[in-house]
């Protein structure tokens, strides 16, 4: 999938651009390069509708002069002179951040499991066979079930980072992903469920998400009548339903710059209890095979595993080099340093700050779903939500809708509810009576952080509003 010389080519490109920066007398520079290749299949109406392949990539240049930075991106190395001029023009128009310099070279230990040779060896035929297996599995699980949308794909990315400060890093990562929208349209009722799985390593031919999609399309059929009055109720959110909300609200709240700028609901609460006292949050940049893991962050600083919340107490935060320098320079905090939390979505933008492989754990361990339902007694199970992106990361407030919701009474599942609103404040709900399941699943993206979460039972703080 990836040309044998992919790394050599982007390293050569970085050196050419870096040499040009040096020739032009740029004080500090950093060049990143990405080159990705992949194969992809789309599935519609129960069949493979399209097969695609290709590659893309480019370079980004960040320059720093006297605390001022500029950035530009380019596709062709020959365009480097123009891109460098643009980056310098921007730098010279930018405010100086006292103390901001590009990170110096530090040793970084490799992280294993980020590249799978089996993925590199895959061709389009292999994907077609996997798609056949998925479609067959869905049909075998329920003859009414159809994969109405989705697809699968594999990719490989060669990346490199070279800087004037001696950072010279490159590597290859792989990815394999699959997602299906399974619908059951029978007896004048259409139910559906979207499920997906992805990772750095080769997935099984038929991942468990396939059966899960069929299951949720099945169990949400034949809605029962429930009291339509809005009510505060315990809610067991599956990992799939909880992750989109959690990822929208929580990682943003623990960015160092947002904390010190009063832009987080946890601003001013460093060292205090912010979550239920058994819960901890960990951001792991070095997880073996982690979807978002790497040996260095987006600006070359070695990554680490850091505890953000320790048994309910806020003890950490995430910083990139520039954010740390800027907030210190502006007097919002006395001291701050990079935590190896610079992230990049590609070559088109300079690094921002974000999480890697982000996990919530409980000192009390995980519980089976039966145990969680018994504890819940009366309430709801919510498996997916619509509108997680409309949650407010500044306040933690959210108000979303779900069509994959089950009513629970006396610890037993009574049946599905056709549709309901679900609202509350996630930060507050997580600070109360919370219990975790025992099966951690991974949701989220490669570049903007992946969530490692089990099912989460929130006993207080959520309101259900049945349609």
């Amino acid at each position, binding site marked *: 999938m990836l040309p044998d010389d992919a790394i050599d080519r982007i390293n050569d490109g970085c050196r050419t651009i870096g040499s040009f920066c040096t020739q032009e007398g740029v004080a500090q520079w950093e060049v990143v390069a990405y080159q990705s290749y992949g194969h992809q299949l789309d599935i519609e109406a129960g069949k493979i509708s399209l097969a695609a392949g*290709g590659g893309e990539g480019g370079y980004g240049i960040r320059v720093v002069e006297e605390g001022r930075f500029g950035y530009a991106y380019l596709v062709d190395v020959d365009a480097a002179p123009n891109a460098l001029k643009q980056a310098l023009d921007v730098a010279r128009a930018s405010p100086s951040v006292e103390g901001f310099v590009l990170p110096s070279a530090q040793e970084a230990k490799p992280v294993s499991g980020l590249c799978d040779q089996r993925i590199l060896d895959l061709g389009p035929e292999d994907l077609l066979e996997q798609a056949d297996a998925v479609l067959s599995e869905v049909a075998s699980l329920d003859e009414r079930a159809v994969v109405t949308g989705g697809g699968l794909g594999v990719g490989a990315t060669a990346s490199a980072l070279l800087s004037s400060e001696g950072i010279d890093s490159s590597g290859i990562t792989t990815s394999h992903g699959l997602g299906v929208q399974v619908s059951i349209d029978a007896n004048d009722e259409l139910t559906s469920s979207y499920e997906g799985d992805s990772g750095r390593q080769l997935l099984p031919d038929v991942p468990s998400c396939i059966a899960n999609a069929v299951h949720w399309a099945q169990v949400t059929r034949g809605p029962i009548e429930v009291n339509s009055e809005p009510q505060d109720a315990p809610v067991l959110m599956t990992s799939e339903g909880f992750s989109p909300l959690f990822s929208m609200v929580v990682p943003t709240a623990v960015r160092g710059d947002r904390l010190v700028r009063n832009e987080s609901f946890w601003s001013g609460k460093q060292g205090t209890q912010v979550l239920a006292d058994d819960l901890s949050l960990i951001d792991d940049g070095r997880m073996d095979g982690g979807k978002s893991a790497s040996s260095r962050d987006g600006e070359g600083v070695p990554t680490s595993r850091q505890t953000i919340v320790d048994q309910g107490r806020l003890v950490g935060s995430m910083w990139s080099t520039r954010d740390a320098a800027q907030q210190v320079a502006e007097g919002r905090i006395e001291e701050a340093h990079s935590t190896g939390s610079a992230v990049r979505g590609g070559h088109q933008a300079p690094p921002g700050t974000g999480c890697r492989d982000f996990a919530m754990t409980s000192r009390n361990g995980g519980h089976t779903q039966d145990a969680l339902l018994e504890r819940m007694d009366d309430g709801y199970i919510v498996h997916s939500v619509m509108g997680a992106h409309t949650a407010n990361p500044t306040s933690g*407030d959210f108000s979303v809708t779900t069509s994959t919701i089950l009513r629970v009474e006396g610890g037993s599942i009574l049946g599905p509810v056709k549709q309901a609103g679900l609202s509350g404040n996630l930060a507050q709900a997580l600070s109360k009576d919370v219990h975790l399941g025992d099966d951690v699943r991974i949701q989220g993206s490669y570049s903007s952080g992946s969530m490692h979460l089990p099912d989460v039972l929130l006993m207080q703080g959520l309101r259900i509003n049945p349609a």
Partner: protein
Amino acid sequence: MVMSASPTDGHPAGTGRYLQQSKIQAALGHAQDLGASYAEVRLMAITDSSVAIRDGKLERAIPGQEIGVTMRILADGAWGVHSTTDLQSLPGQVESTVRLAKAVAARRASKDRPVALAEVPILENEVHWKPKKDVRNTDLDTKLHHLMTLHDSAAEDERIVSVTCGWHDEHLHTELMTSEGMNRVWSFQRSLINATVTGRDGGDVVSYRTRHGGEGGLEVIEDCDLGELGRNAQVATLRLLKAERAPSGKLPLVADRDLTGVYIHEALGHPCEADLVAAGDSCLDGKLGQTIGNSIVTVVDDPTIRGGYGAHPIDDEGLDTREKCLIKNGVLTEYLNHRETAHHFGIAPNAGARAQDGLHHPLVRMSNTMIQGGTHNDLDELMEDIEYGVYACGSRGGQVDTGRGSFQFAAQEAWLIENGELTKPLKDVSVSGLTLQILNDVDGLTRDARLAAPGFCGKGQTVPVGDGGPIMRISQALVG
């Protein structure tokens, strides 16, 4: 490493061509020789600029250009696609892409129909929507001046702890050549400015975002009173600090034109996309010609509305864009389609194909989607019969499950309506419902319909859209 060609005459804008036409024609011919019934090459060059300021200081400015090209080949009734930033490599990929299409076709079950395309006029021409002020000629100082105007007006209160303002402009140049002889070039620009205002009062922290933008160059930004935009955002932020949580339940809802636009985009627009209908993932399957809404509801999707953020002159299959009337007086009249789905349903193509950029293949997408105006004069008239309800304004986005026909959208702020009057400010209002039910519950529309704030629509690919309409009343909506 990847590389992109330069336009043949050295002028990236307007009349310049990036594709070497003779080589592309040869590649398309080669695809046909290998058994392709149709082949196309579409290139998109995007020259763009993003600027952000935070608390009045330049945070980042990023100029750049991306060129991507996608070759789409139809062979044996199935698609093979190759996308790349390496223009020179494209002819070498014809054989493998035909092979890919044939491999997909070989797996087609006998019950499944092969893909075929509706016939369309074959055109060879260029269409360039010229901006009044080419945004590529706008220097950084000018952009900063506008951003600072927005910032300063939004920041004037000690309870405002942060104001982040952003700018994005882009010049989009597209070339399409097909094995049928289509050879078109088109270009246009988009410009956008936005702000996110964060307010804090004790332990309460809220944020409010505002946007202005549209198709066009610098004039889009200059035509906006940025001072007023910023002041309104500041006032809304401070109001949210005092707002109460919204009541939950089924209530009469009045939506401003921002929210009306998002409602019609989510609740109706997506289920009207013919690729979803054909896939069995739309609640509107089989409902063409049926009454699905109140007779006062007429909805159009119109990419030809100049200035709308979803405006574009030609769709990504080379068809001249046109207005589509999705609902006429409550009756579902038209799906949005592209050539494949037009053939599938035996209906006329209506130029609904859009791709995110040169590296993606076209899907059926919306453009500028609006409910047409009704008969009510103003907000007061819409509210006068409401004893207890909610007036919701501004959009935080929405989402739809097209198959189930359920949708959700969230408001930036809201008010309680009591006895026909706006009373308490509310926060965190979201609205959900079922498409086939709530279109019947629209029972009041003001006369003046127009596009509201620009937006973005995700469907695997992200494209800019314009949404809007009049102020709308829904007799009963699930408010949360």
